[in-house]
């Protein structure tokens, strides 16, 4: 009894804090939890004209359709492959870029480099993909011209027509566009590292490279882990635009992602139930990924999110 009273008292003492958090909770409920009620569609043969109550329940038929379709599993493979390649490369590039930028002594040059490097982030994918497809063109494209000029190839390569190149094309389009932007957080984290550590390292005779390795990187390790966990949750959502715009019939086996599959077989032919089922599948996988990484991070003695 007294324990409960104690709790109540403590809660009463924090009522201002509760009031402050209330809007956020309402927001989260309305925009994140309430829409989940739409998941019911996945177990129905949903027709917009009939609504939730009028549509017939079909159990797990939609999931069965998904899981029996080889195209769907191909899409899952493509999504995972492209997303993970993306994740790894954009991580490595952003971190290395932040480290290198940190070593620039001239403040003006540093600022200019940083600004220029994150500008592509603000371009739409449509524009970036046009640039990419022009650069990779067999018809006077920059990449082919360059490779031919230095003698690596003797006739133009159809970069956008061969399956083996496609994942790399999407990965490096992403790297080109997002490296600068992604590095901002690391640069912020690096600037938070205690300068005394660098001085101490210098006194110990550490070279520039050793300082990067032993001071800067450990200093931003926790940031890296947190961002990794957060980004993993997005892995399955992060592959629509580039494969959709640059993909073609020739590349379908490697370019069709879950989102594109859902667009074709769900939205385009009015099968909203199927689209929802695929959405649930994605959510489940994402959750698993996040919890899995979190657990691994815990095990490794890093700060985890939860």
């Amino acid at each position, binding site marked *: 009894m007294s324990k409960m009273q104690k709790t109540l008292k403590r809660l009463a003492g924090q009522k201002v804090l509760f009031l402050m958090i209330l809007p956020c909770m309402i927001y989260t409920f309305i925009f994140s939890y309430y829409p989940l009620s739409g998941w019911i569609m996945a177990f129905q043969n949903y027709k917009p004209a009939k609504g939730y109550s009028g549509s017939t329940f079909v159990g797990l038929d939609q999931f069965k359709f998904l899981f029996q379709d080889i195209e769907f599993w191909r899409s899952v493979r493509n999504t995972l492959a492209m997303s993970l390649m993306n994740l790894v490369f954009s991580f490595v590039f952003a971190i290395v870029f932040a480290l290198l930028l940190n070593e620039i002594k001239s403040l003006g040059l540093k600022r200019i480099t940083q600004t220029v490097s994150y500008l592509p982030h603000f371009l739409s994918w449509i524009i970036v993909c046009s640039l990419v497809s022009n650069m990779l063109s067999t018809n006077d494209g920059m990449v082919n011209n360059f490779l031919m000029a230095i003698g690596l190839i003797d006739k133009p390569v159809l970069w956008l027509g061969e399956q083996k190149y496609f994942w790399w094309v999407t990965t490096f389009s992403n790297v080109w566009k997002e490296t600068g932007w992604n590095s901002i957080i690391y640069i912020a984290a690096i600037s938070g590292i205690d300068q005394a550590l660098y001085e101490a390292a210098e006194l110990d005779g550490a070279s520039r490279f050793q300082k990067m390795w032993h001071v800067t990187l450990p200093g931003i390790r926790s940031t890296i882990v*947190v961002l990794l966990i957060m980004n993993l949750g997005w892995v399955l959502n992060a592959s629509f635009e580039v494969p959709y715009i640059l993909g073609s019939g020739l590349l379908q086996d490697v370019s069709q992602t879950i989102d594109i599959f859902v667009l074709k077989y769900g939205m385009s032919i009015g099968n909203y139930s199927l689209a929802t089922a695929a959405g649930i599948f994605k959510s489940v996988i994402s959750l698993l990924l996040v919890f899995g990484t979190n657990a691994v991070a815990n095990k490794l003695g890093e700060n985890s999110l939860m």
Partner: protein
Amino acid sequence: MKLKKLCAILLASSMVLSLAACGGSGSEPKQDTAAEDTKEPEDANTDTADAAEEESGEDTAGDEAGADASGETGSSEENYYGGLVPLDDADDPITYTFFVRDPGVVPADNNPVIQKITELTGVTIKFEFLVGDLDQKLGVMIAGGDYPDVIFAGDAGSKLRDAGAFIPLEEEIPKYPNLNAMYGNVLKYLTQADGHVYDMEIYGTFQNDVTEVAPPFECALGFYIQKAVLEEAGYPEVKTVDDYFKIIEDYMANHPEIDGVKTTGFEILADGWRNWALLNPVQNLLGAGNDGAVFVNQDTLETSFFQISDDAHAFYQKLNEEYQKGVIEAETFTQNYDQYISKITTGAVLGFYDQNWNFQSAQDLLKADGKFERTYVAVPITNPGVKDGYLDKSNGIPSGTNGIGITVNCENPDRLLRFFDWLCQREVQDYLQWGEEGTDWVYSADGGKELTPERRAIVRDTARKRDETGLTLWNYCPKWQGIYTSDGMPCGTGESPDEYLASQSDYDKSFLEGYGIKYPAEMFSDPIVRAAYYPVWALTLEDGSPAAVANTKITDVTMKFYPRLILAKDEAEYESIWNDFLKEFNTIDLESYQTEIDSQIAQKMAK
């Protein structure tokens, strides 16, 4: 310690993010209001301008009516239509929003014709053209119930009908004399399974007492070839795929470059939904028109999948040969529509399979540059001994899939229908399509109608056509098409033989002389009056049904394999890809698709 730092970093980054987010959302409404602020005085300006114009506009309208009455001794029909007479409630402005499934640009606000129509009717149509993917756009519309007043969704309209987006029109149409004259006889074909009519078809001449079908001057789809190629070959008859590629190869050998650009023999566009160049040709080779995903035997109405036929095998093998000869470039499969159009615009592409509206913009640019010999003409390519079936003569039956529908969100459908009815007066139709007599069009020597050179220049310029004529409005509203039976006059410029001949460049005239024909369509067999079911692509499949899934799969699998077949290294690889293709094609649930199509064909033929 570590934790604290982490928290600080997280907090900082989330603050940066939320700041950015707030900045975004905060500035947006501001911009909006700013835009509105600047807009309002502008509106006020145009209002006064409108008012000023209204007076002069009415004057000219009056004059015209006078001229009509005196010039044509006013037959009773003329009086019935009454010229450009304003509607009673023209001083009560109303705006309707109109979504169009085509990508496009909205006509300028100061378009004089549309302004005048608004002045005479009080109705403003606010067009919204498609940006991005149609199915997605409609899906979002349906999910939110957020419909404009009118929608032209083409064959995607079935989705909207299923969602209950449209109001039934079968009891409305008979109330309006012009609309009734247009649709009254064909209502049964527009009636959906639930017994209601939801859309007014806007393309084609339907069975009625006012108009009849006009003969085609040009073929609207098929294997196109540059006129210069035919000229150099001495205007030969080109009938088979072998003939076609033979003269292209010859021309390529003589002209490795055209105007400094490397010559391309044959282009195949395969970009998203613009996939017919890859998927359709074989049915044409078999003598069909633009039918759909199955070949329909016109005598027995039996359906079959031409995609996996021996004819398809032979056709794509021929394309594979052409690829190996360098006539087809591999890049054709990776380019998008814009790249395709800009490539054609260079004038260095000798041939392609397409539908004329799809490359119209490129052809218009070539004409504007005066490169008439670089424009294209379709030739009747079929398998040897097969009669070509490219040309349609409308059977007067609406397809049921090219209609505009009025949505449940439209607040005043009666006035909108009255507006459409008003537009369908002959005087208004002539005004929208032809403009004003004397300045925009004149009677030709043999009594037909042709445009003045000034007007022709406007119509040829996409932007001026949009901003200075009423053709956008005309295009997406109910309209008369064909030939008026009362006096044999063409409804529009496209149906006027005099205008067709007058608009030909000197080059085109000599080209036609070279072939000894009057119109390019004469190269083809006579137009075919299609069976009532035609075409298969317009049959609607129930959303999410196995047939719809199979249909998507058929496209998917063919889109995947045909390019590979064409790019095969040698015959052995071709055969092995072909076998893979057959295997994958046959895993599709073809039966449910075919059964559905068969039953729909039977239903339509029974009507």
